[in-house]
C-alpha cells in the first residue's frame, strides 16, 4: 500500500466531527424552517402551532402533521408586499452585481499587472476592508452622506449644488453601500485568475498582430470568465438576502426580502410567515447556489 493511501483513512476520520457539527447546525435547522413555514401563527411561546411533542406518542404527531398547511405560502404569493420584496431583491442584486463587475474588473486587472512585489501589498489593501466590520463601513458612509455630511459640504463648496442634497434613505445610497461592501468579493477571485495568466499568451497575440485592446478581448477576458462567474455568484447570492445595508441606507417605502423577513420575525413575531419567506428565498437561490457549489468544487479539485 502506498504512503498516500495510508494517509487517507485517518484523514477521513477527521471528517467525523465537522460533519456531525454541520449536519446538526446547518442542515437539520432547514428542516425546522420548513416545518414551521407550514405551521400556524399563534400567540404562544413559541409563537406557532402545532408544536411537536414527541412524548405524546404517534397519534399526537399524526394530529400535528394533519394541522400543517400551505397557508403561509398562499399568503406570500397573494400579498403584493412579499412579491414586490422578492422582485426588488432580485433587481437590486442584479444591478449591484453588474456595477461591481464593471468597477471591480479594472481594479483586479490593474493589480494583476503591478510588479510582482507590489501585488502582495495591493492584495493586502483590498483584503483589509473585508476584515473590517460590515456595520462600521456602512456607518462610515452614513457619516459622509448625511444632510450636513462631507459629501454635501464638498458639493456646496464647489458650487455644484445650491442646497444640500438628500442622500440618505435613497436607493443611490443603498447601491453605494452595497458596492462598497462587496467590492473585495468581486476583486479577489478576478485577481487570483488574472495574476496567474500566462504572459506568453499575450506576447503570442501581440506577435500575431493584435493590438493590446484586441489581445485583451480575445485572450485575457475569455480566459477570466470562470473568475467572473465566481465573483458574480459571491456577490449576487448574499446581496439578494441583504438586510443591514438596505435597512440603514435605503428609504423605507420599499423593502428587500431580507428586511421583510426581519420585520415579520422581530416586529410582527410571525415566525411561520418569516419561515415561509426564508423557504421561498432559498428556493430562488437554489440555482445560483448549485452553480457556485460546482464552481468551488472544480477549483478545489484543480488545486489538489
Amino acid at each position, binding site marked *: 500500500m502506498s504512503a498516500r493511501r495510508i494517509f487517507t483513512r485517518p484523514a477521513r476520520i477527521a*471528517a467525523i466531527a465537522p460533519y456531525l*457539527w454541520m449536519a446538526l*447546525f446547518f442542515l437539520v435547522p432547514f428542516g425546522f424552517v420548513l416545518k414551521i413555514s407550514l405551521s400556524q401563527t399563534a400567540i404562544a411561546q413559541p409563537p406557532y402551532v402545532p408544536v411537536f411533542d414527541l412524548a405524546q406518542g404517534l397519534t399526537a404527531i399524526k394530529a400535528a402533521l394533519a394541522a400543517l398547511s400551505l397557508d403561509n405560502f398562499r399568503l406570500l404569493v397573494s400579498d403584493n408586499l412579499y412579491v414586490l420584496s422578492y422582485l426588488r431583491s432580485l433587481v437590486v442584486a442584479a444591478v449591484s452585481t453588474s456595477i461591481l463587475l464593471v468597477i471591480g474588473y479594472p481594479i483586479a486587472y490593474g493589480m494583476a499587472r503591478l510588479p510582482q512585489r507590489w501585488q502582495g501589498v495591493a492584495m493586502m489593501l483590498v483584503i483589509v476592508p473585508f476584515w473590517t466590520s460590515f456595520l462600521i463601513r456602512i456607518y462610515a458612509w452614513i457619516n459622509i452622506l448625511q444632510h450636513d455630511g462631507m459629501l454635501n459640504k464638498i458639493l456646496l463648496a464647489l458650487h455644484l449644488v445650491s442646497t444640500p442634497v438628500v442622500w440618505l434613505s435613497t436607493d443611490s445610497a443603498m447601491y453605494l453601500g452595497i458596492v462598497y461592501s462587496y467590492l473585495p468579493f468581486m476583486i479577489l477571485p478576478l485577481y487570483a485568475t488574472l495574476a496567474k495568466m500566462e504572459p506568453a499568451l499575450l506576447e503570442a497575440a501581440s506577435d500575431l498582430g493584435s493590438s493590446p485592446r484586441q489581445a485583451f478581448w480575445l485572450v485575457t477576458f475569455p480566459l477570466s470568465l470562470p473568475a467572473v462567474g465566481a465573483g458574480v455568484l459571491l456577490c449576487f447570492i448574499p446581496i439578494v438576502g441583504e438586510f443591514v445595508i438596505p435597512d440603514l441606507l435605503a428609504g423605507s417605502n420599499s423593502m428587500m426580502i431580507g428586511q421583510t423577513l426581519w420585520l415579520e420575525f422581530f416586529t410582527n413575531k410571525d415566525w411561520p410567515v418569516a419561515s415561509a419567506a426564508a423557504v421561498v428565498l432559498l428556493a430562488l437561490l437554489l440555482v445560483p447556489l448549485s452553480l457556485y457549489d460546482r464552481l468551488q468544487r472544480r477549483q478545489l479539485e484543480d488545486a489538489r
Partner: protein
Amino acid sequence: MMARAPNKLSPFNVVSLALGLAFLYLPIVILVIYSFNASRLVTVWGGWSLRWYTEFFHDRAMLEAALMSFRVAAVSATLATLLGTLAAVALSRGERFKGRTLFSGMLYAPLVMPEVITGLSLLLLFVALNAERGFWTVTIAHTTLTMCFVAVVVQSRLGSLDRSLEEAAMDLGCAPARAFLAVTLPLIAPAIAAGWMLAFTLSLDDLVIASFTTGPGSATLPIRIYSEVRLGVKPEINAICTLIIGLIAVVIVVASLVSKLSSSRGESTAPL
C-alpha cells in the same frame, strides 16, 4: 499606436487602481478622523479631543456588550479553527469518501448563504431544543459560520503543499498521525493562525446571526452599535468604531507577520 510590451501597466490600470483604493479607504479615514472631533456635532470640526473615547469607557451597556462580543469571538474562533482544520484535512487528504459531496456542499454554502436564513434556521433549532438563548447559542452559531471560512483558508494551503514531504515521512516509518503532526501541521500552521484570526474578526463583526440567536439581556457589540446607529450618527460610535478598526489592524499585521515568518517557500494562495 506605439508598440507596447503587452504586460506593462497602462495609465488606465494605474488610475483604476488608485481610484479603487481611494474608494475603499476614504470613508474609513474620515470616520477615524471625526472620532477625535471635540464638537458634539458630528459634522462640525471643533478641534482634536479624546472625549468620545472617555465617554465610551464610561458607557456600561456598551462595555458589557463589547465584553460579550470578545468572549463569543474567542471561544467560537477556537472551536471553528479546530473543526475547520479537521474538515480541510478530510477534504484535501481523504480522497473520495461516502458523503463527500454533501460534506463539501455544507461547508461552502454558508459562505454565501444570506445571513437572515442561517440566523433564522439556527434560532428555530435552538427553540426546538429548548436551549436557553445567550452566550452559548451565539457562540455555536458563529462557530458554524466561521468554521467554513477556516476550512477554505486551510484547505487552499494544504492544496499547495508538496505531498511528497509527508509521504517521505511515512516511507521512513512514521505513522500517519505522527507524519501529520511532525510534517504537515507545522507547514499549515500559518494558515491555521490566519483562519483563527479571520474567524475572530468575522464573529466580532456579525450582526444578523447574533440578533437571531441571542437572548434578552445578552446583546453583542454590533447589536448595540446597530441600535444606536439607527437613531443617527453619534460621535461616541465613531470612537468605538475606531477602536475596533485599530484592533483589527493589529490582528492583520500580526497575521501577515506570522505568515511571512513561517512561509518562506511558496506564496500563500489563501484568497481571504
